[in-house]
């Protein structure tokens, strides 16, 4: 059985193809303006890797903010359900999942069967999302990938008091002009991001095991700061890029649907 998941996010689009419960292809691209185009491009690239065409896919599920505009999927499922499904497949003991994407962040709690018990998402503000880190990395002059590593080298992290991305930008520029080291500014930004996530995570009532998905899970500075704030270890996802968990969950849900269809 060959299934696929396509996650069209605001910043990146992801695709995962699975064959008999094993990942055979994965792809991440920067999203384009039109979700339908992003979906086609990322899926074509993944299919090329797998040496397949769309006709070879038995069932495909779409997710992410652009899920309703993907033309080739059989069904669209919310990213909350997909991240939960993907995280549980990767870490079967997981009960709480924190997902920070480009434009939103969410926390969800699942039961022993993987069913979502409670979830919470951020509001319209960008301050607790990947976009916040992207903006800040650009101002400091580091890549998004390098921002996480700054925390480990920081000596006196700055305190980011404001919750607004625009105001934080002004603060960061002020600190740079004052000659504060990029490491201390970066660590302060990672800590601020973790603080915002901690509020969201505490809201749903944390339960062990806890893991993080989405692109921000790759930022070690945020993950370590969040562990300190929550007083709980965050299990690392190692089998795949955490950014792909939504697409992976979609592919797994596609498999579930195929099996159900075959059974009926």
């Amino acid at each position, binding site marked *: 059985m060959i299934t696929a998941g396509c996650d069209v996010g605001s910043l990146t689009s992801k695709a995962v193809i699975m064959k008999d419960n094993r990942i055979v292809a994965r792809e991440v691209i920067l999203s384009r303006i039109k979700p339908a185009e992003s979906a086609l491009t990322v899926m074509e690239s993944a299919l090329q890797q797998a040496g397949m065409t769309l006709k070879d896919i038995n069932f495909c599920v779409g997710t992410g903010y652009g899920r*309703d505009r993907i033309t080739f999927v059989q069904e669209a499922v919310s990213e909350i359900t997909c991240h939960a499904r993907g995280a549980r497949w990767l870490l079967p003991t997981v009960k709480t999942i924190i997902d920070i994407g480009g434009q939103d962040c969410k926390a969800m709690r699942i039961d022993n069967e993987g069913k*979502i018990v409670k*979830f919470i998402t951020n509001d*319209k503000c960008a301050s607790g999302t990947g976009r916040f880190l992207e903006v800040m990395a650009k101002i400091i002059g580091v890549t998004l990938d390098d921002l996480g590593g700054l925390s480990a080298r920081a000596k006196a992290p700055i305190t980011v008091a404001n919750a607004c991305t625009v105001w934080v930008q002004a603060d960061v520029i002020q600190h740079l002009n004052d000659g504060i080291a990029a490491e201390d500014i970066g660590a302060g930004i990672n800590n601020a991001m973790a603080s915002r996530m901690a509020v969201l995570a505490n809201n749903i009532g944390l339960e062990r095991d806890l893991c993080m998905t989405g692109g921000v899970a790759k930022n070690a500075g945020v993950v370590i700061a969040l562990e300190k704030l929550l007083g709980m270890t965050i299990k690392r996802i190692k089998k795949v890029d955490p950014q792909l968990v939504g697409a992976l969950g979609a592919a797994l849900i596609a498999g579930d649907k195929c099996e159900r269809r075959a059974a009926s």
Partner: protein
Amino acid sequence: MDTDKWFSKLLDEPLNELVQKSMDEGQIPIGYSCSYVPEVMLSVDGLFPVRMHATGIAGTEIADNYLSSVICSYTRSLLEFALDERYDFLRGWVFAASCDHLRRLYDNLEYLKRPGFSRILDVPHKTGDAAINWYTDELKLFAKALTDHFGVDLGADALAKAIREHNAFNAVLRKIGEYRSGDKPVMTGTEYHRLVIAAGTSPKKPLLPILKKIRNDLPKRDPLPPYRARLLLAGGHLDDPGYISIIESQGGLIVADRLCTGSYPGLLPIPETGDPIAALAKHYLTKTSCPRMMEAFRERAEDIVKLARECRADGVVIQILKFCDTWGVEAAAFVSCIREAGIPVLRLERDYRLGGEGQLRTRIQAFIESMGK
């Protein structure tokens, strides 16, 4: 006539075609903003009530100069519309001191744009006999003020007639509502809410024959296409059917509501016997079911659970306006009570102006998925 489009158009502007027509016929529009204001008393002898709304508002740039950003967006939107002269057609308005936000709106309007008739009703925070007697006296003073200003008859006979007409009108709306709650609904929650809001914001007399025709035609309709879940929508003020439309676009059919601006408890009949003002005071004080009322949390929570079971709702969605203090506290406690009753529940915060559609769709879809639907 495309009924859906016609009703949508009625909600586009406070001064809609039915309001204009009634004014042309010499009727007097009086605005009001809270369910504690007895609209029956504004439906006598040439007066007609208009529930104030600001549907389609683009921003509150002027109102933000007068009301802080932690005042709810419904309140700020009303002030914006009033300052934008969209309510200049009203000959008076009546507020209720139901929450601090609406009181601040009244204060600002008194200062910025007082119409010929302006009143705020003091509403007790309890619903016992003493409170009902007190509210009866308050409504008597209100009746006298209306009579003194507009020269209208608010005597016992006139009020009794208004109550009968109010009940007859609401009975038609309630009957229509049954067609979205049955086993095979033929009407969406969006369509029904549009009718209910139009009924509150337009004169009732010209609307009644149209609603009766809808009621008579509904049994001939085909059932709605399959949907994923039956939902009950609860919460405070909601006058935009577009919000319900987004929920229903994800397969969650709204089969019942418990909203300040909805069908329950707003359409319940008022007793037609005894002193009409006393009956009105008791009805509006005890049936409005607002979280501002003390000592009645349990009843309000049980009411939602009972309603959800009666209409076989798979889940409850509670929507509240951001910064609404009363509903903010109540909704948090409701979530636990409804969940304890074994009914899945989702709490959503929103702005008065419809926005964040993508996020709303995701939350609703995830909620329905979490129910295994």
